[in-house]
C-alpha cells in the first residue's frame, strides 16, 4: 500500500467525450493519469470500458447526471462523497445526480482500490477538474447558440444564464456540447461558493440498505449457480493426508466433492447443504511445516527486541550519546496479539469459468490485482476476465486479499460450474489474513527536564512498518531519534488491518508519552505541544505530518473536551496521531463503576482538510474511534500449534453497544485539500483509552487487549 508514501500527481488530457446514441453526452475521465491516445468513450453506456477511463459521467438530455464509478465501496462513503465533488463543480442539484457502480475489466487501472484512506485524496483534483470541464462545455454550447461570448454567461444548478437573463437548461444544450472540443483550462470554484461540498448528503445506497435489497456479494445469484463450502487445513502448517467424502455426498443437495490443492470444495444446491456437507467430511491432516503457537511468537519477538539484528529505518543525531548522558531513562515494551478482521459479511465470491470468458462477482477491495492473479492461476488471458464488484459488508483490509476469489475461480475452472464460495464465520476467522502480532520497545532519555533521545524498536511477524511511518511524530521533534525494525517469518498469513501498524504503534507511543509527561511533571497535552514546537514544517521531505496542523488539532480537542477541567469522578486520557495524511487528536473520558472502567465519551478533533460530506465524515470517525477502543479492550486472538483459538463470536469478543462511548467529532476548519477518514480515527483511540484508565486506576496497560489486565476489575462489577 502506497498510502504512507509521497505522491506525485501528474495530469494532462485526462478527459474525453462522446455523443451518446440515445442523446446526451458521455464523459470519460481518469483520476491522475492521462488518457491513452486512442481512448474514446463509447456511444452506448452499456459498453463502458474501465480500461480506458477510471469513471464516466453521463449527462442525459433532460439534464440529469449519472456517474458510473467503479471505485469500491466498503462502507467508507466514497460512493457518495466522490460524486459530490463532481456535482459541485458541474453545478447541478444533488437530487439530479445518481450513482451507479460500474463493472470492471482492468489492466491499467492503478487506483481502483479502496485502502489506505486514499480515494478522496487522489480523486480531489481530477474530480473537480472533470466537473468544471463538463460545465464549461455546456456553457460554451449555450453561448454558441446565443451567439455570444461564453465568458459572459454563467451556470448554476443545471441552468445556464446569458447576460440578458435568457436561460437554457443543461439538457437543452447537452447534445451540442457533445460535439465541442474539450476545453483545456477551466476555472474551479472557490471554497466559499460550495453548495454541495460541506453539506450533509445521506449515503446514496440508503434506500436499498434500509429495505433489504440485494447489494452485497453474498446476495448475488446467477441462474444455475452452485453453492460451495470449502474445507481448509484447520491449522497453519498442515495439509491433507487423506479424506473420505462418503458421508458428505450422502447429504441431500450435495452434488460434488472436489479436492483442489490442500482444500476440499463441497458443492451443493444451497448454502446449508454445502455447509453440512463440509462438516460431514472425514479428513486426515498431516503436518507440513511448523505448527506455531502464540507462546513461540512471544519468545521470537522478544529475542528480536533483545538482539542486534534490526534494520535502522531512521536515525537522527546520536541516540547512544543521548542515553549515556541522560539523567533518567524510561523504557517500556508494548505487546499486541494477532487480530482477525471479522467483516460482518463473511468472505464470498462468485465465479463462472467458461470457454469464452471468466465471470467473477463479489466484494473485493483490489479488483485489478485479483483479476490478474486469477488469470495467472487458471492460465487465461486477462482480457477474458470480467470482474464485477458488489457493495462490501465491511473490509478493514481483509478484502484487499483475493484468496476467496481465487478459490472460487479455481473451483469453477475444475468443475466447469458456476459457483459461489461462501465462508462460514468459522472459515472466515480461521482462514484469516491477520493483523500480525507486534511488539514495540520504546526508550527515551531525559535530561534537564527535556526529552533528549527516543529509540523505538519494532518486532513484528512477517513484515514491518512501511513507507513513511518511521518518520511520523516524534521524528523531527527530538534531536536524537532512532527507529529500528525486525521481523520473524511465520507460516500464519498476515496482512493489512485497518490502519496497518499505526493501529497499534499509536497506542504504544501515545501511552509512552503519557508516562514521559508524568516523569517530566508536565501536562500530557502540553508535552506534545512543546515537542511540536521543535518541528520545522516542510524542512524534511520524509516528515509529512505538519506541526502546525497537529498543534491546532490538539488544541481543538483539548478545548472541546474541557481537558483538565472535568467534573469529579471523570478521568481523561489524551492521544494525538497523524496517519494516512490526516491529523487526529482524541480525549477519552471514563468513569469507574465499582472500580471498573466505563468508557463514557470520546472527544475527537480532526484535520482532514475540506470536509466533503460532514455526515459521512463523522460516521467514519465515530466508527474508527469505537473500533479502536473495542479492539484495544477486547481483541484477542491466539494460536495453539498453528490453530486459531477462537473461530466465532461466542468466544471472540467484539465491542457491543453497551460498551460504546459517545463520540463527539470536531473538524479543524480550513481550505486545504481533503484527505481520507476510513482509518485515521482509529490509531489514537487505544492510547487515549489506556491513558484514561491509568489516570483513573493507576494501572499501566502495556498489553492489548486491555481486558487481559482489567479482568480483575470486571470481577468487582459482577457482584
Amino acid at each position: 500500500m502506497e498510502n504512507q508514501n509521497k505522491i506525485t500527481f501528474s495530469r494532462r488530457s485526462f478527459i474525453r467525450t462522446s455523443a451518446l446514441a440515445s442523446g446526451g453526452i458521455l464523459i470519460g475521465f481518469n483520476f491522475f493519469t492521462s488518457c491513452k491516445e486512442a481512448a474514446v468513450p463509447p456511444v452506448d453506456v452499456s459498453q463502458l470500458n474501465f480500461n480506458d477511463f477510471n469513471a464516466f459521467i453521463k449527462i442525459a438530455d433532460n439534464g440529469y447526471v449519472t456517474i458510473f464509478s467503479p471505485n469500491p465501496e466498503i462502507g467508507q462513503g466514497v460512493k457518495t462523497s466522490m460524486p459530490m465533488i463532481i456535482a459541485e463543480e458541474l453545478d447541478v442539484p444533488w437530487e439530479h445526480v445518481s450513482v451507479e457502480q460500474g463493472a470492471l475489466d482492468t489492466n491499467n487501472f492503478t487506483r481502483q482500490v479502496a485502502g489506505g484512506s486514499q480515494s478522496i485524496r487522489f480523486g480531489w483534483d481530477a474530480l473537480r477538474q472533470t466537473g468544471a470541464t463538463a460545465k464549461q462545455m455546456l456553457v460554451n454550447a449555450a453561448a454558441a447558440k446565443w451567439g455570444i461570448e461564453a465568458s459572459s454567461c454563467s451556470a448554476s444548478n443545471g441552468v445556464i444564464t446569458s447576460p440578458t437573463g435568457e436561460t437554457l437548461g443543461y439538457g437543452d444544450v447537452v447534445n451540442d456540447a457533445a460535439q465541442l472540443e474539450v476545453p483545456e483550462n477551466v476555472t474551479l470554484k472557490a471554497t466559499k461558493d460550495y453548495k454541495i461540498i460541506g453539506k450533509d448528503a445521506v449515503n446514496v445506497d440508503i434506500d436499498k440498505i434500509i429495505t433489504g435489497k440485494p447489494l452485497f456479494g453474498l446476495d448475488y445469484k446467477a441462474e444455475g449457480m452452485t453453492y460451495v463450502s470449502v474445507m481448509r487445513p484447520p491449522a497453519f502448517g498442515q495439509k491433507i493426508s487423506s479424506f473420505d467424502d462418503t458421508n458428505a455426498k450422502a447429504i441431500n443437495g450435495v452434488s460434488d466433492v472436489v479436492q483442489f490443492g490442500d482444500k476440499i470444495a463441497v458443492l451443493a444446491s444451497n448454502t446449508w447443504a454445502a455447509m453440512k456437507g463440509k462438516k460431514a467430511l472425514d479428513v486426515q491432516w498431516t503436518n507440513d511445516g511448523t505448527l506455531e503457537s502464540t507462546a513461540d511468537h512471544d519468545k521470537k519477538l522478544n529475542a528480536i527486541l533483545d538482539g542486534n539484528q534490526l534494520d535502522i529505518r531512521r536515525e537522527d543525531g546520536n541516540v547512544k550519546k543521548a542515553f549515556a548522558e541522560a539523567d533518567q531513562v524510561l523504557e517500556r515494551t508494548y505487546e499486541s496479539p494477532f487480530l482477525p478482521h471479522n467483516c460482518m459479511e463473511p468472505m464470498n465470491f462468485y465465479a463462472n469459468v467458461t470457454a469464452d470468458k471468466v465471470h467473477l462477482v463479489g466484494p473485493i477491495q483490489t479488483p485489478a490485482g485479483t483479476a490478474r492473479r486469477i488469470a495467472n492461476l487458471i492460465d487465461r488471458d486477462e482480457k477474458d476476465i470480467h470482474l464485477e464488484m458488489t457493495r462490501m459488508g465491511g473490509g478493514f483490509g481483509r478484502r484487499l486479499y483475493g484468496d476467496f476469489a481465487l478459490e472460487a475461480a479455481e473451483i469453477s475452472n475444475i468443475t466447469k460450474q458456476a459457483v459461489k464460495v461462501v465462508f462460514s464465520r468459522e472459515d472466515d476467522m480461521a482462514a484469516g489474513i491477520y493483523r500480525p502480532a507486534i511488539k514495540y520497545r520504546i526508550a527515551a532519555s531525559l535530561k534537564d527536564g527535556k526529552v533528549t533521545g527516543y529509540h523505538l524498536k519494532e518486532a513484528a511477524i512477517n513484515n514491518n512498518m512501511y513507507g513513511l511511518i518511521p518518520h511520523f511524530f516524534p521524528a523531527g521533534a527530538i534531536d536524537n531519534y532512532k527507529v529500528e525494525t525486525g521481523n520473524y517469518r511465520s507460516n500464519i498469513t498476515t496482512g493489512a488491518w485497518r490502519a496497518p501498524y499505526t493501529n497499534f504503534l499509536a497506542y504504544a507511543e501515545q501511552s509512552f508519552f503519557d508516562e514521559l509527561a508524568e516523569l517530566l511533571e508536565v501536562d500530557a497535552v502540553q508535552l506534545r505541544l512543546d515537542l511540536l514546537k521543535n518541528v520545522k514544517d516542510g524542512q524534511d521531505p520524509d516528515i509529512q505530518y505538519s506541526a502546525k496542523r497537529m498543534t491546532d488539532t490538539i488544541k481543538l480537542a483539548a478545548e472541546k473536551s474541557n481537558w483538565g477541567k472535568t467534573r469529579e469522578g471523570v478521568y481523561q486520557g489524551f492521544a494525538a496521531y497523524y496517519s494516512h495524511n490526516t491529523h487526529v487528536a482524541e480525549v477519552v473520558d471514563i468513569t469507574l463503576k465499582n472500580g471498573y472502567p466505563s468508557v463514557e465519551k470520546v472527544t475527537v478533533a480532526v484535520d482532514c482538510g475540506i470536509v466533503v460530506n460532514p455526515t459521512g465524515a463523522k460516521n467514519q470517525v465515530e466508527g474508527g474511534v469505537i473500533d479502536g477502543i473495542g479492539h484495544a479492550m477486547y481483541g484477542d486472538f491466539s494460536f495453539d500449534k498453528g490453530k486459531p483459538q477462537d473461530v466465532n463470536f461466542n468466544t471472540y469478543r467484539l465491542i457491543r453497544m453497551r460498551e460504546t462511548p459517545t463520540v463527539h467529532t470536531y473538524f479543524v476548519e480550513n481550505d486545504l485539500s481533503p484527505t481520507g477518514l476510513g482509518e485515521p480515527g482509529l490509531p489514537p483511540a487505544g492510547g487515549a483509552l489506556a491513558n484514561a484508565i491509568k489516570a483513573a486506576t493507576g494501572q499501566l496497560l502495556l498489553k492489548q487487549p486491555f481486558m487481559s489486565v482489567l479482568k480483575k476489575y470486571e470481577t468487582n462489577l459482577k457482584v
Partner: protein
Amino acid sequence: MASYNLKVNGKSVNVNVDDDTPLLWVLRDELNLVGTKFGCGIAQCGACTVHLDGVAVRSCSLPVSSLEGSNITTIEGLAKDELHPVQEAWKELDVPQCGYCQAGQMMTASSFLKDNPNPSSEDIRNAMNGNLCRCASYNRIEKAVALAAKKMS
C-alpha cells in the same frame, strides 16, 4: 426433504427443504429474500434477525421444522405502505456505514419499540446489545432508535 408451509411477509409460501434447514437459508436461498443477513450462524451477532409472530428472533438458529404455520416478517416486509418509523429514522440519521448488519439492527429495534414505546437510553443500549456492528455505527443506531420511538408516539 419435506414440505413446509410458512407465512412470510403476509404471504403463504411452501418450501421443500431438509427439516434442519435454518430459517435464514430458507429465506435467502429458497425464497430469494436476501435482506436477512448471514453473520455468524450461532445467534451471536444478530445480522439474521427477523420477527417470528412479532418477536425478534435469530433466523440462523431456527430450524424450519419448528416454524410450520408461523408468521415471519423480514426486512423486506417491515415497510407496509410507507417506510416503518425505524427505517425513516435510519435514513434521516444516515446510520449505515457498510450497511450489512443494519437489517438485523432495524428488526431488533422495531420489535423492541413495539413493547417499549418510550425507552430510556439505557433500555435502548440493553435492547440493541445483541446486534454487532463491525463498522461500529452504534452511536447512530442508538440515536435512530430514540428518534423512531419519537416518530411512533
